[in-house]
């Protein structure tokens, strides 16, 4: 690994390598080493989750969202999947010389709306401008903190017997960005960008959640694989049960993508004790961001880290993390 390749930013195997082999050794500490999407620590008597994420999506506006909304939702969700209540965000803007102020304002308005819905305040920020060509229009970094009132949820808690749930259709965000970038004239593919803290709260009220994570870059397959590895369990997923919008499925087929590897920005995978799974499903379906929720598989005894997929026609194959770059600059 002598130079950074675009694949190092894919969220798949190469990103994982870059993080564990190059970045982690410099900062080695027990909080970071867990490699969840947020660090969890105590401050005084409070258990706190902290997370940060940078957004470089190209183009900055797409059907169903924009870079501003994404920057709020992404960090809110990274906090929420630890079981935290997101509270405060910071915003760092990197702007390219020549970027239209009216577009910036559109993005800022969208950020404020998203923050309001997510019940967080943007409390500090920073702005930098770089010469034309040194950045592409606008990049945004957000960091956030949240309070964990019960037990923290990590990616390592899934147990055999748990059922696996998702709160709706997969691949919507990735394909919406792709359609906007390539200027495909599709009218029915929208990003699913959404804050998930409310939905997660409802699910946790009615069921015992052992693990959860939002399947962003690298898609559902990559996240399932991560959790199978972290939890040292085996997962069995049923392709037929995975919600997929027909238009997203068609666009994936057309462009040669597997929706299981396409990014989501408003989805969460839940690993739930089987007893509460039906209640969790019902709670999700009542929530605006969970109408198409489904139980898509289960955790099994078996080789640690294995994810098997039962295909629609009854065949079986294994799922792995995304390799290479499927779509650069998706979030």
């Amino acid at each position, binding site marked *: 690994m002598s130079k950074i*390749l675009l*694949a190092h930013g894919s969220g798949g195997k190469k990103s994982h390598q870059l993080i564990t082999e190059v970045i982690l050794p410099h900062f080695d500490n027990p909080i970071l080493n867990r490699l969840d999407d947020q660090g969890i620590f105590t401050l005084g008597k409070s258990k706190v989750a902290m997370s940060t994420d940078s957004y470089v999506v190209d183009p900055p506006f797409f059907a169903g969202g924009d870079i501003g909304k994404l920057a709020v939702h992404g960090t809110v969700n990274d906090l929420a999947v630890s079981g935290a209540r997101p509270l405060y965000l910071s915003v760092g803007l990197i702007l390219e010389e020549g970027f239209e102020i009216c577009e910036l304002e559109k993005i800022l308005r969208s950020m404020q709306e998203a923050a309001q819905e997510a019940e967080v305040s943007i409390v500090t920020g920073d702005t930098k401008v770089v010469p034309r060509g040194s950045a592409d229009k606008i990049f945004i970094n957000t960091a956030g903190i949240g309070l964990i009132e019960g037990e923290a949820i990590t990616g390592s808690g899934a147990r055999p017997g748990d059922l696996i749930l998702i709160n709706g259709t997969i691949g919507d965000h990735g394909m919406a960005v792709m359609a906007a970038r390539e200027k495909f004239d599709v009218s029915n593919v929208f990003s699913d960008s959404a804050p998930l803290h409310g939905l997660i709260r409802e699910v946790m009220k009615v069921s015992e959640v052992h693990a959860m994570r939002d399947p962003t870059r690298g898609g559902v397959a990559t996240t399932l694989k991560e959790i199978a590895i972290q939890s040292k369990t085996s997962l069995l997923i049923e392709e037929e049960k995975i919600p*997929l919008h027909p238009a997203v499925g068609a666009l994936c087929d057309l462009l040669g993508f597997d929706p299981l590897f396409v990014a989501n920005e408003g989805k969460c995978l839940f690993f739930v004790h089987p007893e509460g799974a039906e209640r969790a499903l019902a709670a999700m379906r009542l929530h605006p961001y969970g109408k198409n929720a489904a139980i898509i598989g289960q955790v099994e005894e078996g080789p640690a880290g294995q994810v098997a997929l039962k295909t629609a026609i*009854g065949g079986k194959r294994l799922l792995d993390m995304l390799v290479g770059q499927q779509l650069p600059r998706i979030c």
Partner: protein
Amino acid sequence: MPCKKTSFRDSGLAGELLARIERDAPSETIQIMEVCGTHTMAIFRHGIKRLLPPSIRLISGPGCPVCVTPISYVDRAIALSSLPDTVIVTFGDLLRVPGSYSSLEQENAKRADVRSVYSPLDALELARCFPEKKVIFLGVGFETTTPTVAAAILSARSQNLKNFKVLAANKVIPPPMRALISGGEVRLDGLLCPGHVSAIIGSDAYAFLAEEFGIPCVVAGFEPLEILGAISFLLSQKKEGVARIDNLYRRFVKADGNPKARAVVSEVFEPADAEWRGLGFIPGSGLEIRPEFEEFDASLIEVEVPKSREPFGCRCGEVLRGMLEPRECPLFGKACTEERPVGACMVSSEGSCAAAFRYGN
């Protein structure tokens, strides 16, 4: 809305087809070759191999355009990428294919300008946007994509875009099939003929396989039920003791294909001998840009290309001839993985090693 099931993935119909395949499967092992890389990927993606009776063996053929492109071509593309004011434009699959010393992906990370697109017309657009740069499109592909490359060249001529060039390694499918079968290295009891290629060349183009070589052929699409249907039809031909061309992809493939697309291709390209990775030089299996379009021919650009060398131990050639299963290659999953591919078959989304690795490792 959840998971709207398409009729081509219906599990009930799949069960009926599988029962029919089970009933017709002979006791001795038979080998069916899927020629097209997209079929290979679909077979793995839907887990079809594990559903078939053990006597039916599916083997992959030379139908992945990136896989059969010789390493010397990749080396030339890399050499061209180092020229000043040059943009290399390619379908994404070729980016990670290892050349003798580097890959286009690695060159892009250094300083070259390499971009991936979905259509040669996107390359044309780049040529229009950057008149001061030479925009070189890497023409790798079979009958399916060649008409779009030819159309791009015609369009470049009518727009007088002299900075648009194509490094053509376009190939045609029937000659290597003849070479493979008359070579006799691998016994074939049936052929699953490519879907997209057939849309251009027509199902009649395979007549020689049935007539001269007595091999049952079925043209099919890429959905799981279409592939199972094709296997069932091949078994029926076998049972009846006949060899003919059955077309199960009539919604796209006509007997005579798409004459208009072929006319565009022959206006711009002429047949040539071509080198195939694993199969060597095959007469009449490639396409060259005609001399009247030489201003768009990137193969005429002078550039120093280092002597090519095949990666040590790589057995892509045997995999492409259907003689070796990906898993039987000693490098598979060890020295050669999707992250660190040694050979092209591990890189392309249509490569049989990539399919075996991604969906079955």
